[in-house]
């Protein structure tokens, strides 16, 4: 019993001395009260810890501390990994979108009469949705070979507008859902195509458009109504 009390007293005195030395070293700034809170807590633990021995239960401070610190670390990692996951998902989606665009461009170029093609797609980027990754809309700008479009229903700018109107009209269910953004996208693609080659005139070749949309529909499983084709002759 005497040994227990002696150990206890020595422990407390040493700890108090140690805390005093540490506080001497501290800068006088604003951090001091935080350090004081902590040293105070540790002093209380040192004072009452041996009592657990009297009650027959041992308290291991370092084990309890490690457990609590591990708990904090685990939560922190969980939070950080959630953030990372979102970032990764976003990048994967972007990569996926680019790959689809590449594939569409490739398969559009394989269609007869097409010299070059540019594509843009809108996919479902809501990763909680069941249809995540589904292609919502495809925009294709094709540059046609020489006189391929000239001998068919040759049209100039006048014809082209109704043509693209036609292709936009059938998607009533989509347009209700997606609204104005799509219109912006169409505009930007249209002007982009015009800027690309000033000499190119917009024409309309129904056969080519049908071949193209059928092919895209076959490969990517997108409804014909969601494929918007713009033709430019060089």
């Amino acid at each position, binding site marked *: 019993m005497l040994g227990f009390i002696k150990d206890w007293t020595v422990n407390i005195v040493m700890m108090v001395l140690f805390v005093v030395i540490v506080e001497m070293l501290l800068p006088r700034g604003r951090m001091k009260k*935080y350090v004081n809170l902590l040293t105070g807590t540790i002093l209380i633990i040192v004072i009452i810890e041996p009592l657990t021995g009297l009650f027959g239960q041992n308290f291991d401070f370092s084990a309890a501390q490690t*457990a609590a610190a591990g708990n904090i670390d685990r939560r922190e990692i969980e939070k950080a990994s959630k953030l990372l996951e979102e970032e990764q998902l976003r990048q994967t989606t972007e990569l996926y979108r680019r790959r689809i665009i590449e594939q569409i461009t490739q398969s559009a170029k394989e269609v007869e009469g097409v010299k070059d093609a540019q594509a843009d797609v809108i996919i479902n980027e809501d990763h909680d949705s069941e249809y995540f990754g589904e292609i919502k809309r495809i925009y294709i700008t094709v540059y046609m070979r020489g006189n391929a479009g000239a001998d068919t229903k040759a049209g100039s700018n006048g014809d082209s507008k109704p043509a693209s109107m036609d292709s936009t009209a059938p998607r009533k269910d989509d347009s209700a859902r997606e609204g104005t953004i799509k219109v912006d996208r169409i505009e930007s693609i249209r002007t982009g195509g015009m800027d690309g080659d000033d000499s190119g005139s917009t024409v309309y070749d129904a056969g080519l458009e049908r071949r193209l949309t059928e092919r895209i529909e076959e490969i990517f499983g997108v409804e014909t109504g969601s494929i918007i084709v713009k033709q430019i002759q060089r």
Partner: protein
Amino acid sequence: MEILQIIGIGLVSTLIIIVLRKQKPEIAVQVSIVAGAMIFLMLAAKLSAVVDMLGEYADKAGIKPAYFITVLKITGIAYIAEFGAEICRDAGEGAIASKIEMAGKVMIVVLAVPVITSLMDLILKIMP
């Protein structure tokens, strides 16, 4: 007598800074950072020797190293945060200084929470 060397460094750098501040205030800040770091480094070895010795005595007296280590960690964080914040404040960037202090406080709290929860555990254990 290393205290003389430290005072020498402090005085010389103060004079340099006073001269420079009129002509080139941006270099004055750098001089003050370097002087602060030099003094800090000169103290670091001595401080670590003192801490080592205290650790040995704590071992002898039977204080668990966990207490010792926690107190020292928190002191170190407070010290470094204060040092960085003071440099920023000298350069006139009070906003960044208070951000550094905030980060230091967060780190201290991260270390403090396990200690406080283990105190709670201890109290709950003692309660019959």
